[in-house]
């Protein structure tokens, strides 16, 4: 469901370059030829150390985002307005957790164990999509998440589904299929509030105002500041630049928001008819980095809830543990 469009990396560029130097140049060339021919890389195939590292990071952070993203929504299940909305939200949250499992499996095929990924999430070493560090204050927040954050995630995931790593692409295909239901139910709830009573409209407009900046943050910093896009795009790990995806998102969804008589809290937002690109006020990127590094309103709560679940589910896992089962990696 929701992928982090922007994948956060700790700066250790020096170590990276050394790793890259150890790749066999002949194998590297053959690998890059395979990618440029459009072939998929499968588990067990030779791959550059940096390609493996970046993919683990990308898929793992995507998996964490799915699981953490279910928290702000899951807590609204008990308060959803009406039985149908409640059922839809339960189904959506179940999907999100399922997506997390699919993605953890895809990352595992690259050699990092499930437990290591969970530990890195709990210790704060691995990140997840920044948008989930904000609270869902009202039902309208859940509606905005269900419509616009899922829409943003779909833009990102549809692009990544054409990437070069086979298991990730296959997981994303299924995820995108289920995601289309999330988008539809989110849009439906969104329209209901937008065309409802004045109180409903005000609640939705407030939520939209709160979420606009996180949504603009979703695809990550502007291309001109992005660190290592070039190589990742050549290897088809990253399939579209941050600005391209943001533009594509605005192109599709801003008209859908405006047509309902809602406004967006950016006076500069408009599509330039000459370039076909959207112009907007740059969101506060310092805030983005502050939040991704733990300073957001919900960073602490999200991780604590996740830790709580791990700790309180442990006795179940232990009780079921079969000591004769040895750990293995997925085959494909």
């Amino acid at each position, binding site marked *: 469901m929701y992928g982090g469009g922007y994948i956060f990396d700790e700066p250790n560029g020096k170590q990276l370059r050394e790793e890259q130097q150890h790749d066999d140049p002949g194998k590297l060339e053959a690998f890059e030829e395979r990618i440029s021919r459009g072939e998929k890389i499968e588990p067990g195939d030779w791959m550059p150390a940096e390609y493996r590292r970046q993919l683990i990071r990308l898929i793992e952070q995507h998996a964490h985002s799915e699981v953490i993203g279910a928290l702000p929504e899951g807590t609204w299940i008990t308060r959803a307005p009406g039985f149908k909305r409640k059922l839809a939200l339960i189904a959506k949250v179940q999907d999100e957790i399922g997506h997390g499992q699919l993605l953890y*499996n895809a990352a595992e095929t690259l050699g990092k164990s499930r437990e290591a990924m969970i530990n890195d999430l709990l210790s704060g070493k691995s990140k997840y999509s920044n948008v989930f560090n904000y609270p869902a204050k009202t039902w309208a927040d859940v509606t905005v998440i269900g419509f616009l954050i899922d829409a943003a995630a779909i833009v990102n995931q549809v692009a990544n589904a054409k990437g070069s790593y086979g298991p990730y692409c296959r997981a994303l295909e299924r995820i995108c299929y289920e995601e289309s239901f999330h988008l539809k139910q989110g849009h439906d709830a969104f329209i209901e509030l937008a065309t409802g009573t004045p109180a409903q409209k005000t609640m939705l407009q407030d939520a939209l105002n709160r979420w606009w900046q996180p949504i603009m943050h979703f695809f990550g910093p502007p291309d001109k500041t992005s660190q290592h896009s070039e190589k990742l795009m050549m290897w088809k790990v990253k399939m579209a630049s941050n600005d391209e995806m943001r533009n594509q998102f605005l192109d599709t969804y801003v008209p859908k928001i405006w047509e309902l008589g809602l406004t967006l809290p950016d006076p500069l937002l408009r599509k330039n008819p000459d370039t076909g690109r959207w112009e907007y006020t740059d969101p506060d990127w310092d805030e983005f980095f502050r939040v991704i590094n733990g300073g957001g309103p919900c960073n602490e709560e999200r991780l604590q809830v996740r830790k709580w679940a791990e700790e309180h589910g442990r006795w179940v896992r232990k009780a079921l543990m079969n000591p004769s089962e040895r750990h293995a990696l997925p085959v494909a």
Partner: protein
Amino acid sequence: MSNESLDPRVNRLKLDDAGTVIRVEEGENWNVYEVFHQEKRGARHEHVGCVHAPDPQLALVFAKEQFARRKKCVNLWVVRSADILAFDVEDEDMFANNLDKNYRDASGFKVMEKINKFKQSK
């Protein structure tokens, strides 16, 4: 932690301090099972992915949740990933077909050519 969450459900949990270290032990999330999905009776089972489970019975339960809650499904197989024996990926070339083997292919026998030639020679 004094919980100031907006979420009543979170407030009911007694959450530990933010600094608490929780470590998941290696193997605590069990083992990997490959899942094969059958769309209708008589169809072949298709590999769709994996689940983590402590034993095959639970692997089936998890596989049902994960892979059979949307698509049509009449049966599932699970098998421990560790039990799958496969060729080394690097040995792919051993499956290459010798293109000269058209003698064991229908297209390798041009009977009409010979018949026509025979008819013309009469």
